[in-house]
């Protein structure tokens, strides 16, 4: 039932997913450029598969875009299950999404990422990326703020988009 709704509204998922991902990417890249955080999620994704920096960056960006769409689909399914899409529901979902990323995903990353070093083992020839640490704080003390801000905006935009759609 939910899937059917999603399939019927694929154009909304596509367009608002793209828009929300673009905003999230802008916030995260903007934070990097402005010196607020060194976190780069596309780079982290890309280095799962490539050790070449340029290949990792490009492939990471593509994966990140696809991930943004997949999450837009998840958000759609969530709102459909709730029976309503609103901007504030999107905002709360985005906030929780960002919080989950910081508190659950980033801390386990050193154990699942093939190129990330851990504080227990030290860097090796293969695993040499700096780990994120608690709340991603190794990448800058404003990392939690910018990550949550980006994801909250992502959720807000999706909630708003699905609401007007």
């Amino acid at each position, binding site marked *: 039932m939910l899937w059917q709704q999603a399939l019927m509204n694929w154009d909304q998922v596509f367009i608002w997913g793209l828009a929300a991902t673009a905003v999230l990417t802008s916030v995260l890249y903007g934070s990097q450029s402005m*010196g607020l955080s060194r976190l780069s999620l596309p*780079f982290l994704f890309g280095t799962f598969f490539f050790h070449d920096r340029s290949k990792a960056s490009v492939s990471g960006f593509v994966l990140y875009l696809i991930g943004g769409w997949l999450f837009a689909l998840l958000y759609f399914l969530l709102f459909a299950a709730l029976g309503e899409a609103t901007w504030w529901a999107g905002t709360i979902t985005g906030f929780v999404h960002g919080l989950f990323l910081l508190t659950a995903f980033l801390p386990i990353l050193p154990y699942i990422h093939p190129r990330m070093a851990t*504080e227990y083992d*030290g860097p090796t020839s293969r695993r*040499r990326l*700096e780990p994120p640490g608690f709340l991603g704080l190794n990448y800058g003390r404003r990392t939690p703020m910018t990550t949550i801000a980006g994801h909250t905006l992502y959720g807000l935009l999706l909630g708003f988009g699905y609401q007007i759609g």
Partner: protein
Amino acid sequence: MNSTTPLTADAAAMQADAYPAIDDYALIGDCRTAALVSRDGAVEWCCFPHFSGPSVFAALLDRRRGGRFAIRPRGQYTVSREYLPDTAVLVTRFETESGVVELTDAMPIFGASSEERLQPLRELLRRIHCSRGHVELEVDYQPRPEYATVTPKIRHHGRLGWSCAYGAKLLHLHTDLPLQPNDFGDRLTGQYRFSEGETRYCSLSYAESDIGVIPPLGPDAARRLDSTIGWWQAWTRQCSYHGFHADAVRRSAITLKLVTFTLSGAIVAAPTTSLPEKVGGTRNWDYRYCWLRDASMTLRAFIDLNYYHEGQAFLGWLLHATRLTAPELDVLYDVYGEAVIPERNLEHLEGYLGSRPVRIGNGAWNQLQLDVYGEVVLAAYDYIHRGGRLDRYERNVLRGIGYVVCRLWRRPDKGLWEPRGEPLDHTHSKVMCWVALDRLIRLAEQGHLKVPKAHFQTVMRAIEEAVEQHGYNTGLRSYTGAFDSEQMDAALLLMARYGYRDPNDARIRDTFARIDRVLGRGAQLRRYDGLADDRPPGEGVFAVCGFWAVDYLARAGRLAEAQERFERLTGYANDVWLFSEEYDTETGAALGNFPQAFTHIGLITAALSLGRAKGEPRFED
């Protein structure tokens, strides 16, 4: 050239407040940035991420605040050091009563074939190896980023090592030496007793606006070091010069490569700022930028040594990085071609031996210096003359420069030495305007360009007339630094080199004699005498000018004099064959920013001229 000069050093005398001599330092780098390593194993100047980025170690300019990364034995020791043959990898050998330890310093260069391509943005790698007996070493790591305006908190990350983050920047020290933070958490120190055969590493990596990469130690670090050594040796093997003082020429080429910003082809004048031209004085300038004034000699130095790609990249940078101002040219640009380089003083740094102010940026960027037009055109001319080709944009820039020269040549300017006083009609600048038009006409005649030949020739004649009437003093029997004056300027030695007059023309010969008499101090020369400058007098001899004298003598066929002078000038090199900008006229102590690309270009130029005069030409003049 890998000479070693043993000296006795006492650790107690090497404490924080004793400034080493300027040429006590050796240079390491990765062609993006560089670091100065003192004779007692301390990195005391290092900027990230490039030459003109903010320093992370600046004890060179302030012993107490600047920050350093020192590794040295405890107690009495003697030091000798050398670059590994044909590389920029420095080995400092400490000998104590109980043993010998070798400290190898390098900034790794990662080739395209590097197995692991996740490398840090920059890395400073230090290997400590005990080759005999046992030696107790002490380590002192005091990062003071952003020109020592930041005192970072150093955090421990288990086996990953130590990091300090500031803004979006990260300095990460990974080492297998035991270190302890001080009470404030802004400094790490440690002592370790090395046994014979033992090897340990310190890897300092830098990241900016990106996730850090922490390079491993052990065999992986050894591979990075070997790869860097191999890279430098392969680069040096390209050098085709095997003539007079070939070792010194190769070392100068390596030094020039060390101050080349490989990402753009730009070459900085020196990797340091504010090392004084007079100790305790105010002539302290930031040289971590790219001046156009030595463009033609730089290009020829590279190409004539068979470094065609470096010459090509440099010319490409000259003609493209200057797009922001072309066809008018500023005096200096940063490594990316930024033309506006505001100058400011770092009041919190005491300066080398109290020489204040410490400046960053360079206020000369917006001066009018007419000689740069001649330099850029001459560089392009030499490039084409040696088989290079220019694209349409580059040809348009050159033609535009011709028009600018015709419009501006009558204006007084600041001249090659960019004094901060009033502008003057500098004879050398006028001659360089003549050179610009002369070479443009030659390029047109050879079919490379279209220029209004008759117009340019008319202006050339007017310039020549002005130079001969106002730039030559018949009473002194010499060209003078400025029109209608008695001032002397060593840059006039270049008139023959640039083809304005034959080297044995009476006026040129007499001018050389007067320059040597008035400005000469042994084999060296001061750069000028009495040119308008608002700074207190007392600077030393300007090292490149001595090599210009060699170049002149070689061109004039006075080979024995040229050779003898060259030999004497090489005596000013430090133990690892690096030259400074200036030397004290009394003591011979190095002065000014160090090492100085201009001096090394002068050495290569003089050696090539000598070789050419002795019948070993690779290229026509």
